């Protein structure tokens, strides 16, 4: 079971400002794609469209399965892809319940949820914070929680928007190790938008640049 994302002739604008102009790209490997580009170039807009959280003005966004069939954009597909906001999107409840969210709505039982959440919290170094209200986490801790919450549902496509903004050097290293570990399992396509070049070059297999509404490969 392997998903492929094909974007063709994508257009998106707000008011009279065009952000994405006839953009085409194919994400077809289980590796880390990093998108860089100036503020306002459309990285967030692009990731949200890829994650099916926004609709393009024109063009196609299609996920194909391993038999090259286009998947309908229903809950089954939505449950295979996930996007982490730069501001994370924190539910007003404990860190544990935030991370458990995706598992609960998928109907996992308490025992499975417990062990999976404990494991991933340990992974991102937040075990000691699991009972704390997630809204009271520091920005860097919140970022790691967001990553844990997305990882625990084992998505096939993981879109990360500015995962290292507000994160200190040590924790950036931790996130790098995490991503490399996910990458080695070869089960997830990771697409990251970032301004952090050292981070981009450490984790990225493919460095892309979003400029003037189009995507370029940086060799």
């Amino acid at each position, binding site marked *: 079971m392997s998903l492929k994302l094909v974007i063709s002739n994508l257009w998106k604008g707000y008011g009279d400002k065009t952000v994405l102009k006839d953009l085409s790209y194919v994400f077809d490997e289980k590796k880390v794609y990093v998108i860089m580009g100036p503020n306002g170039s459309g990285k967030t807009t692009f990731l*949200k469209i890829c*994650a099916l*959280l926004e609709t393009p003005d024109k063009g196609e966004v299609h996920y194909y399965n391993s038999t090259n069939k286009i998947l309908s954009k229903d*809950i089954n597909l*939505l*449950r295979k*892809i*996930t*996007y982490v*906001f730069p*501001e*994370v*999107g924190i*539910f*007003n*409840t404990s860190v544990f319940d935030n991370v458990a*969210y*995706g598992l609960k*709505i*998928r109907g996992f039982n308490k025992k499975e949820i417990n062990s999976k959440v404990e494991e991933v919290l340990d992974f991102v170094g937040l075990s000691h914070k699991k009972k704390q*209200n997630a*809204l*009271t986490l520091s920005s860097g801790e919140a970022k790691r929680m967001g990553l844990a*919450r*997305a990882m625990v*549902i084992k998505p096939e496509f993981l879109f990360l928007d500015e995962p290292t903004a507000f994160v200190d050097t040590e924790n950036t290293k931790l996130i790098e190790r995490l991503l490399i570990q996910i990458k080695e399992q070869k089960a997830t396509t990771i697409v990251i938008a970032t301004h952090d070049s050292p981070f981009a070059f450490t984790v990225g297999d493919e460095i892309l640049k979003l400029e003037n509404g189009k995507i370029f490969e940086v060799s």
Partner: protein
Amino acid sequence: MDFLIEAFKQAFLLIVNLDKELLEIILLSLKVSLSALLLASVLGVPFGAFLGMKNFPGRSFIIIFLNTGMGLPPVVVGLFLYMLFSRSGPLGFLNLLYTPTAMVIAQFILAFPIVASISQASVRKVSPIIKLTAKTLGATPFQIALTLIKEARYGIFTGILGGLGRVMAEVGAILIVGGNIAGYTRVMTTTIALETDKGNFELALALGIILLSISFLINLLLYYIQKKEIRTNP
């Protein structure tokens, strides 16, 4: 002056002795108001949440209508229901006039706009990022709706307690449709209104003290809910 002191003394005696009539009145009051509130919450929270989540033509009109309902004078509700339920009224055949059921309906009408309107505003206030986060973590539309209601829970509780405060304190509507029949439809506020008229201050005063205490408890709860909301929303 003496009669005031005497009235207070008698009132306290009624309370500490758990006077049977007093208890009956308090229990019926609670039964009527809590039933009305339960009904208003079961219908008002989902309705308000729906209004808070969806955009459709006529939505603002419904909200203005609900907000008008929040200030509805209880006597007007009483009058309106009286006309509906009176023997010659369109619903007269139901024989509801002067029954606790009619009182519950009256108080439901008073509480519903408060619960629905405040639920609407609270759900509306939840950040769009929360909604999209729920969606991208795999929630179905129904699960997303539940998540938004959960996020808005402090606001929604405030609305429910606001509704309770309103129905516990009102007298106009239930006096008209309930009729203050001893042992059947007599509740705290109607008893106070009519016993005071008769110069029977002890019972009225005892009920007044109980009502004030209930109002104090409601506000204490509101205070803690708001404090908690502020603490978790830095």
